[in-house]
Structures are given as structure tokens and as C-alpha cells.
């Protein structure tokens, strides 16, 4: 009640708030600028920061996912909302593994996915992920055979609550440990006389498994 007095955001902040609130999709700074007439992107970014901070402790939060912004409910309230609103499709174990491989290795070809999993990937698995809107075809690798390569989408980041791919759980550790490199590269790194490389990668491998 008394809060309302100290709670008068400026016009641009209100406009950004209302636009994001009304939008069915997450919005980039550019698309916000498009909706808000001649607002400067820098001002919109400032307004977004202000709003994100403002909502931080509330039941609704403003989050950035792959350069797109949207409002969503606070994660700690999931138990209240989850009950009747389970909309998430169940993924098979194969699909979750393939999704992880695409996310951590993108862009990646089907052959590369299969070499990590040691098993053929049925076409249906990638179809399911593309139908869910989490994986897209990102072109072709310019090697013989020009295989199709896959990558994740902005919807993937949105769904899993990632600001960007750098936010993927443990990706820095995995990369540092060389676990995102192909086996051949990792093997060469281990057996070459250049001891530093091997040492470093070995240390970090053992380090992050405790985490």
C-alpha cells in the first residue's frame, strides 16, 4: 500500500514491463525497440536491468534467455504451480542424451553423436528434439559427404532456463577436462611428449568429478 508511492517507474520502464508482460514470445532488445517506437536500445537495456533487479525477489521474475527476455514464475514456487500444469513432454533416455550431446558439442553431426554414444541414433530421436523446438538443423559440415549438423535453439535455452550456452551445467569444467574433444584428440594429447597438456587435462578431469 505504502509501497505504491515509492513504486513509480519511469515511462520507458513501464512500457518495457507491459510489452514483455503482454507478449506471447520472449523478446530481444531489438524487437522491444521496434514495439516502443524510437526508444534507444541502450535505454531499453537499462530498463531491462532495472526490471530484472526489481523483480528478483518477487513471485514473478524477468529473465534473459539467449538474448531474449521474458517474465516467468519464480523457480522456488514450482511446487505450487506444477501440480496441474505439467506441460513438459517426457523425453526418452536416448533423446535426453542426444540433446545433451547436441547442446554441449554444437554444431554436431549425427555421426559425431553416434560416435559418442557408441550406438546408432534413430532418426526419430532427432525428430522428437526438433519437433520439441529444441534442436535445429544448423547447416552442413564442409567435409566429404557434407553431413547435416545440428545445434540448439533459443527455445532450448528458454526451456532449460539458460541465459546462454555458456550457462550449460558444468560446460567449463568439461571443456577444460577435454571431455568435449573427440577421443582421437584426447588420445593424442595424452600420449604426446608435451607433458604440460596431458598434466593439465588430467588434473582438471579428476578435479571436476568431485564437483
Amino acid at each position: 500500500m505504502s509501497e505504491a508511492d515509492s513504486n513509480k517507474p519511469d515511462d520507458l520502464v513501464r512500457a518495457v514491463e507491459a510489452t514483455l508482460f503482454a507478449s506471447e514470445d520472449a523478446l530481444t532488445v531489438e524487437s522491444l525497440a521496434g514495439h516502443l517506437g524510437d526508444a534507444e536500445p541502450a535505454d531499453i537495456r537499462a530498463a531491462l536491468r532495472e526490471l530484472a533487479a526489481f523483480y528478483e525477489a518477487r513471485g514473478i521474475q524477468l529473465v534473459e534467455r539467449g538474448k531474449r527476455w521474458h517474465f516467468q514464475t519464480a523457480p522456488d514456487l514450482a511446487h505450487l504451480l506444477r501440480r496441474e500444469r505439467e506441460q513438459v513432454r517426457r523425453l526418452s533416455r536416448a533423446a535426453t542424451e542426444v540433446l545433451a550431446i547436441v547442446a554441449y558439442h554444437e554444431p554436431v553431426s549425427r555421426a559425431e553423436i553416434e560416435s559418442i554414444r557408441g550406438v546408432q541414433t534413430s532418426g526419430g530421436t532427432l525428430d522428437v528434439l526438433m519437433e520439441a523446438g529444441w534442436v535445429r538443423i544448423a547447416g552442413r559440415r564442409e567435409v566429404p559427404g557434407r553431413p547435416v549438423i545440428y545445434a540448439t535453439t533459443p527455445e532450448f535455452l528458454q526451456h532449460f532456463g539458460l541465459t546462454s550456452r555458456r550457462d550449460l551445467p558444468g560446460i567449463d569444467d568439461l571443456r577444460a577436462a577435454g571431455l568435449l574433444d573427440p577421443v582421437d584428440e584426447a588420445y593424442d594429447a595424452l600420449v604426446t611428449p608435451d607433458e604440460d597438456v596431458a598434466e593439465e587435462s588430467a588434473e582438471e578431469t579428476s578435479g571436476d568429478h568431485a564437483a
Partner: protein
Amino acid sequence: MTHDSFMLSEEDAGESEVWIAPASAPTEDKSLYLELDGWEGPLDLLLDLARRQKVDLRSISILALVDQYIAYIERAESLRLEIAADYLVMAAWLAYLKSALLLPKEEQEDASPEELALRLQLRLQRLGAMREAAARLMARDRLGRDVFRRGAPEGLRIDRVNAWQCAWFDLVRAYGQVNARTAPAIHMVRERPVMTLESAISRVSAMLGVALDWMALEDFLPPHADGRLRRSALASSFVAALELARLGKAELAQDEIFGPLRLRRPRA
């Protein structure tokens, strides 16, 4: 295991949303066999067996792992479970690897067994890393499950309105171009139907000669003249009337401004 049975096992595995690594399942042999269809290929089974050694994947005993795998496959065969070919191929390869590792080291054409073992270990590490990553990914606060977008957004719409632009010069030039394009055709047919002043004078004076009373100017026009010819005839006949009046060969009368113009032979 055929392609189809992989599909089936994927469906079955889909029952658990956050996939629980089989490594956490009871290690009792029987349950292991029952889970046969749950493996995503031999590498997956190997990884799970490796996890049972409860050490870092970097320090697993490959020999022990090979024994475990072969024992597993043999038990499955003894229970007459159907085992897909790729599991058997892996078993054969592992048996070869084991023998190579145990035999005294010699010069070999193939890759050394130590290299093969190390590569297998690296593969298991990579698959293990992705398995963990997948589990952590699935356990995140997920949109539509743990966090929710607004239930009934009003929606945004941009209606595009065209603001057409055309410069004055473009307009005039376009017209000039239209004319330039059609000009040759116009020249072909531009000859206009006209009544010359001479023919009007002769026609009007001839008709005045036989007229008895006032006649409207229009009555002097050729009866079949239409359109432009009629307009031309009207103008020429008017000038002819003025000329005849000047020469004293006709009288003109008009009762009001813009009223009908009448014409007769002068009274002698």
C-alpha cells in the same frame, strides 16, 4: 539388437522423466539381467559396469571391466535372453583386448592393446560426461514444468501500414513515357474530322437562300455530323454566319446571353 528394439527401449526408458543412471540400481545379478533392454548399446552397458567399480573412470581396471562384461553376456546367454549382435561383437572384441593385454608385449602391426584400452577408457569418460550432463540438464528448473510463462498473455501485434511514396517528377515523367510509348499510334489516326470555314460558308449561304424564316444556327449543321465533327461544324458555321452578316448576306439574332442564335436571309 535391432533398430526397432532400440526404439522400443527408448519408449520404455521414457517413463522416467529424469533419467536415473542404472548405476544406481541394485547390483544384484538378477536385476542386472532384467535390465538388459534398458541399455543404450554395449558402450552404455560398459559404462554402467565401470561405474560399479566405484572409482574414477580414469582409474578403472580395464581387465576387470572386460571380465564383468563377458560374464554378463555369458549369464544372459545362459538365461536364453536374446542378445543383440552388437553386444556380442563387443564381447568378442573385449576378449581379444584382454588376451592382447595379458600376452607378452611384442611388435604388433595393429594398435597396441594399451592404446585400445586407453581409447575405450576415453570413450567411456565422454559418454559418462554426457550422461551426467543430460541428468543435470533435465533436473533444471524447466519452463512449463517448474517455472511458467504468463498463462494468458494479451499478445503483441504490429500492423504494417504502407506509406506510399511517389515524387512529382516521377508522376510527370511517367505520363510522358506513356505518351511517348503510344505516340506513333496516335499519329496514325490523328486526322480530325473538321468542317472548314469555306465549306461552312457555302453550306450556310446555300441554305439561307431557300429558308423562309429564322432558323437556329444548329439547323445549318450537316445532319450526320456527330461528336468532334459536329463541334467543328458548329464553330465553322458560327464564323460563317458572322462573315455572311458582315457581307450583308444574313441577319443574326439572339434574344438573351447564351440563348439560341438565329439566322435568316436579310429582308430586301
